[in-house]
């Protein structure tokens, strides 16, 4: 029998460091090596918006208990997009094939979906996360068996940093060498690679910027896929997620809008923060060039550059934000109440009896109470 074999393992296996060559080759031969335990690891990306398991509830996305058996678009209490509802009316149901296609490119498979996620490119990751979801029943309980094949051990988390295997005998204390650095000679010198892995901060003068570049136009696509669902298509903020653009000349208003363009002093902060903390739920997943592109696009959304602009490590330090000069040092000690030489009044300090000027706006602060909006967001 002739078997069509795809040897393009890289295309199939993507860039995931979790997959070893053995599993890649198995996958390219079409052999199912789906590993639900590895899939649970993949699911961590999804957990920014989805819950699955006991007590799973709807978040930005619906809870996924029994997703492979319950059909599509029918989780109680969740408001699906019109796009998904239309597909369900046309007969869509979730199985291994449809889920695989959807997870690979959600916005292509279902334009208008609320799941503004760039997609899971790696086929093995998709197989594994679908296998993991298949182990969770409708009531959130686990169906028990997780595949325990070669893939499982091959994909096992290789934490080379754990303690030594139990079998190894402990060295004699007298034989343990003492380092030469420092005062108490504790710890060990870091390697260059280790420092490079963690030294991710960027300063306003550009120190720390990695080589790279990104244009506004490249940034649009990344932003729409990875950022818009929370920050809004124009950076206006969805719901209580932070606003990123606009708000010019509002700082003295009753309700100022503090955005990158209206408030942030330095562009380096944008690069630094996106690189270390975004997207929410999948930190450190963007490439350095991605971050340049997104930073360029955020400048564009704030009307600070035009659409032809490309941001690079070379021109970065020349980009200044409008509010840079409006920050002052802490001078609370100049406020009239702060002085230490004052006497505290003890009697007849205010004329006339106290009158209520305002009562609590939010009388019932329990989580169910959604009547009052309070004084704005905390974040």
């Amino acid at each position: 029998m002739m078997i069509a074999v795809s040897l393009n393992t890289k295309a199939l296996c993507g860039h995931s460091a979790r997959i070893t060559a053995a599993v890649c080759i198995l996958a390219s031969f079409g052999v199912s090596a789906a590993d639900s335990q590895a899939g649970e690891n993949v699911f961590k990306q999804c957990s920014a918006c989805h819950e699955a398991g006991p007590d799973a509830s709807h978040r930005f996305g619906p809870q996924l208990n029994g997703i492979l058996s319950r059909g599509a678009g029918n989780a109680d209490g969740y408001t699906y997009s019109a796009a998904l509802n239309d597909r369900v009316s046309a007969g869509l149901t979730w199985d291994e094939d449809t889920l695989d296609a959807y997870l690979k490119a959600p916005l292509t498979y279902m334009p208008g979906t609320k799941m503004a996620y760039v997609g899971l490119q790696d086929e093995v990751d998709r197989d594994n996360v679908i296998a993991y979801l298949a182990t969770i029943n409708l009531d959130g309980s686990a169906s028990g068996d997780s595949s325990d094949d070669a893939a499982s051990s091959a994909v096992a988390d290789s934490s080379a940093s754990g303690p030594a295997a139990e079998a190894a005998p402990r060295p004699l204390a007298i034989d343990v060498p003492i380092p030469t650095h420092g005062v108490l000679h504790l710890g060990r010198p870091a390697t260059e690679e280790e420092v490079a892995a963690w030294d991710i901060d960027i300063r306003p003068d550009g120190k720390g910027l990695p080589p790279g570049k990104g244009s506004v136009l490249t940034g649009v696509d990344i932003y729409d896929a990875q950022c818009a669902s929370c920050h809004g298509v124009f950076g206006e903020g969805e719901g209580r997620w932070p606003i990123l653009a606009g708000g010019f000349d509002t700082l003295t208003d009753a309700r100022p809008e503090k955005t990158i363009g209206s408030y942030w002093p330095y562009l380096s902060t944008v690069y630094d923060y996106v690189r270390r903390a975004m997207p929410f739920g999948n930190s450190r997943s963007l490439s350095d060039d991605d971050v340049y592109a997104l930073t360029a696009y955020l400048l564009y959304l704030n009307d600070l550059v035009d659409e032809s602009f490309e941001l690079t490590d070379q021109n970065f330090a020349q980009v200044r934000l409008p509010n840079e000069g409006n920050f002052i040092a802490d001078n609370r000690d100049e406020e009239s109440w702060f002085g230490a030489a004052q006497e505290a009044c003890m009697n007849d300090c205010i004329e006339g009896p106290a009158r209520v000027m305002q009562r609590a706006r939010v009388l019932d602060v329990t989580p169910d109470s959604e009547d009052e909006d309070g004084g704005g967001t905390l974040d």
Partner: protein
Amino acid sequence: MTDKIKNDDAASPNRRQALKAGLQLGGLAAGATVAGNSLAMDTTKPSDPLITEIQDWNRYMGDGVDSNPYGSPSKFEADIVRRDVAWLTADTKSSVNFTPIHALDGIITPNGLCFERHHGGVAQIAPSDHRLMINGLVDTPLVFTMEDLARFPRENHTYFLECAANSGMEWRGAQLNGCQFTHGMVHNVVYTGVRLKHLLAEAGVKVRGKWLLPEGADPAHMTRSIPMEKAMDDCLVVFKMNGEALRPEQGYPIRLVVPGWEGNMWVKWLRRIEVGDKPWHQREETSKYTDLLDDGLARRFTWEMDVKSVITNPSPQAPIMHGKGRTVLTGMAWSGHGTIQRVDVSIDGGRNWLTSRLDSPSFSKSVHRFYYDFDWDGREMFLQSRAIDSNGHIQPTKDALRRARGENSIYHNNGIQTWHVRADGSAENVEIS
């Protein structure tokens, strides 16, 4: 009947009769005694069956010593928990909850009730997998394991940690009806850890090193710039709170402690400290944690937490249930500048003040406990507390703060809090003239 009486039966048949007769006499005698003391006891009202009847807990066994290897409070205290306010933030994983200060006493916050503030959920890190790196302007960039840190000389300190946004909702006026929500982003625990200066000495700080950048290992990779003078002063890298390992919510296995300074700087899940010669102007010290003034300028690097106090009982979550008469008022006070020298209390909305009784151990940059014992006449009150710290700073009114800063600075609201206690003992968060 006892064996003794049975044995005596054999010896003396009449002894039982004599005993019985004696008991009857004794009973009469007892009755006579009761009549003699009747002035002291109540003979008019029915007795409380909780006393006159045997209760289940008097009779039946409870849990054995193997039931609760890690103990919890009584189930009757189950409503004393951290609480969050859902509409404050977009997602609970980048959000805050509040210490139930209305129900606590003393100065130590129990570990399970310390408020949480995360920007990427609670990281779960195995201590054997965690590392602390020191890099930058140092002679030798270093990596420490948790075992390494346990070998440095340790210190114990009791410090408050207050979020700079504590009471931030109240700038515009009375908003949230309970001190847990208006003032609950604060806790006070005993930290065990190592002075940061010892760790820096291992790496060898270069002369040009003037600033530190601590960084966390959670998804937010939280960073702040800290000036070297503070770092070398009293900053600690800690691994224990109130005697046991840091809770995951408080940064297990290690966090930074920056005594008296805003809570955001106390980086949790600490993984790295970089030494540099300039501040980094990270997101949490530019976009956030800068204080916008009403002229459009904003203060940055507002590090210190100012003198502050709040009455925790009575308060909206702790109404006076017992009617007029002897009443205990209590609250807490703290200052990032030192100890609390005095807390004054007013029951008429700041027209007249009396000095309360401070009653707790007094440590610099730690919470202090105060009490005011008085006879309540049952009429409405406007309760306020005003703390004075060891530098002589007097807690200001909210009006004084708003005059100085406007209403949009979000952070560092240390204004005097007013509770309106009504004639029925209930209390409400108010602003008054």
